[in-house]
């Protein structure tokens, strides 16, 4: 395994957003180093998904900045942020469920298929070459994640855990430098979760990217994270290495409720 170096790839600075009086994210700052697996954890409604939605451009923060590779992402649209190199998955899946697995991955090749509209109308040689290349690349990722035999089956025919993995494959097809995963182990059983932990670490190393993870499965988070930030009511209440977080009384209290410490 590569050891994370200390260059920041993503810096959140004093990020805040509120929805009708509720402060979903409240003055959050954090730095994610290149090549590390960084986790954000916290109870339901803590604001984790909201942070992801701000980073990927779906929400505009009330204040604060999101700096990715030295560029402020605030005010950029989601498709631009994807182009800058941020790929994501969604807590509740956003797959194109009527389409096949391969079609889903090919859509993620939008930025890499270099063809013009009129060339596509005529299906010129360039179109054939580019399409074939995109398909090869998509198959390479399907192979990598053991999904190649499902390439031509529509998404809706798969059970949830496989759909999760397909969404991961699709995000990877974007060739992101920062991969943000919102509860990738949601709905997975223990064996599948362990398998996923290995996959995420492998992806980080093989594709040389940085992973920002939101996950409720604590064994997974503690196993694979280089560093962790804990959110509660949109505020950071702790950050550090997994063992520091595990023993932090604030965190235990946030998760188990007041009084847990004394019990």
């Amino acid at each position, binding site marked *: 395994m590569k050891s994370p170096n200390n260059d920041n790839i993503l810096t959140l600075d004093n990020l805040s957003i509120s929805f009708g009086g509720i402060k979903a994210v409240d003055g959050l700052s954090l730095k994610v180093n290149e090549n590390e697996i960084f986790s954000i954890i916290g109870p339901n409604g803590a604001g984790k998904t909201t942070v992801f939605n701000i980073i990927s451009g779906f929400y505009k923060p009330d204040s604060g900045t999101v700096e990715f590779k030295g560029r402020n992402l605030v005010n950029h649209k989601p498709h631009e942020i994807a182009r800058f190199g941020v790929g994501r998955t969604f807590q509740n899946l956003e797959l*194109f469920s009527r389409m096949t697995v391969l079609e889903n991955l090919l859509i993620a*090749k939008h930025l890499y298929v270099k063809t013009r509209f009129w060339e596509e109308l005529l299906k010129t040689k360039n179109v054939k070459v580019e399409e074939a290349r995109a398909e090869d690349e998509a198959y390479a990722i399907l192979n990598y994640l053991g999904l190649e035999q499902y390439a031509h089956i529509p998404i809706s025919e798969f059970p949830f855990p496989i759909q999760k993995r397909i969404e991961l494959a699709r995000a990877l097809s974007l060739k992101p430098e920062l991969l943000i995963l919102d509860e990738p182990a949601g709905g997975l059983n223990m064996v599948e979760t362990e398998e996923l932990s290995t996959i995420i670490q492998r992806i980080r190393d093989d594709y040389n990217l940085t992973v920002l993870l939101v996950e409720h499965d604590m064994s997974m988070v503690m196993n694979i994270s280089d560093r962790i930030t804990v959110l509660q009511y949109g505020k950071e209440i702790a950050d550090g290495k997994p063992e520091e977080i595990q023993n932090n009384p604030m965190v235990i209290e946030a998760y188990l409720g007041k009084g847990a410490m004394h019990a």
Partner: protein
Amino acid sequence: MINKTKNRFLKYLPIIVIAVYFAGPIFIGEYLTYLITLMAIMAIVTQGLNVMIGYAGQFSFGQPGFMAFGAYIGAIVVSRMPWIPFPLTILIVALASALLGFIIGFPCLRLSGFYLAMATFGFSSAIFELINYLGPLTGGNEGMYAPAAAIGKWKLTSTDDVYYIAAITVVLVMIGVKHISKTRTGRAWNAIRDDEIAASSMGINLQREKLKVFAFGAVLAGVSGLFYSYLIRYIESSYFSAMGLSFFLIMVVGGTGRVFGPIYGSIFIIMLPQVFGGKFNQHMNLVYGIILVLFVLLAPNGFYGIWDKIRNKSSVNMNLRDKLFSWIKRERVK
């Protein structure tokens, strides 16, 4: 064996239809040629609607407006500059329609579904008003003569001439759309139809793709409007405003989102009154309305959907299920 033959037949049916299209005028009389030309013209404009709605999920009631725009632009330009050869007229109309598509598309970008439909309906109405208002240019309510297609001294005034222009175009349009549907832009349009959030996080610029599909639909409507003016040679805005429902009917009956749907749909819609004739024509809109409702309720995917159901009985889909099932079993063992 029989299934295989049937599948092969279904696969080649579009080509057979196209061949019949071309051989048409040799065997049939002028009236039937006229009807088939009308089918081709309807299939072109409906293909635009089909791409907008079936491929990209952008509801548009603007097609009659764009069609009228194409017809009038062609007639106005060519009546002033009769020396323009008709391929150039087609190009001019296509470019003007694309430009108008962008202009109309822009304020519509933030709208979707019902609101988009209403806004584009408003656009169509505005076009008709404008045509009536610009009397000196368009003849206003009276309508105007549309010059025939011409190259140099060679005037293409007969129905057969228009037939060939429209038939060649409809084939090219079908091939182009087939290509688009399998490549980058078609996939992006499908993506914004199904899930804008996912599409944009895949790097797809929603606004750009919506503008593109708006312009594409506008071009097909404008060009088919021009051909319509070649066919009937006298245009009034009311001809176009009366067509709005037909395009939807053709699209739905043929099969929304299917490349050859508009062809089958327009054959059906144009032959129906011919077959029944007489009384039927007096109540045509009523019958069309009922057909639309029946299709939406019973066969929402049109003729293509019905075929798919027939084809489901063949081995193709069973294979998929078997594959899936065997995989689930395997996963459980692990």
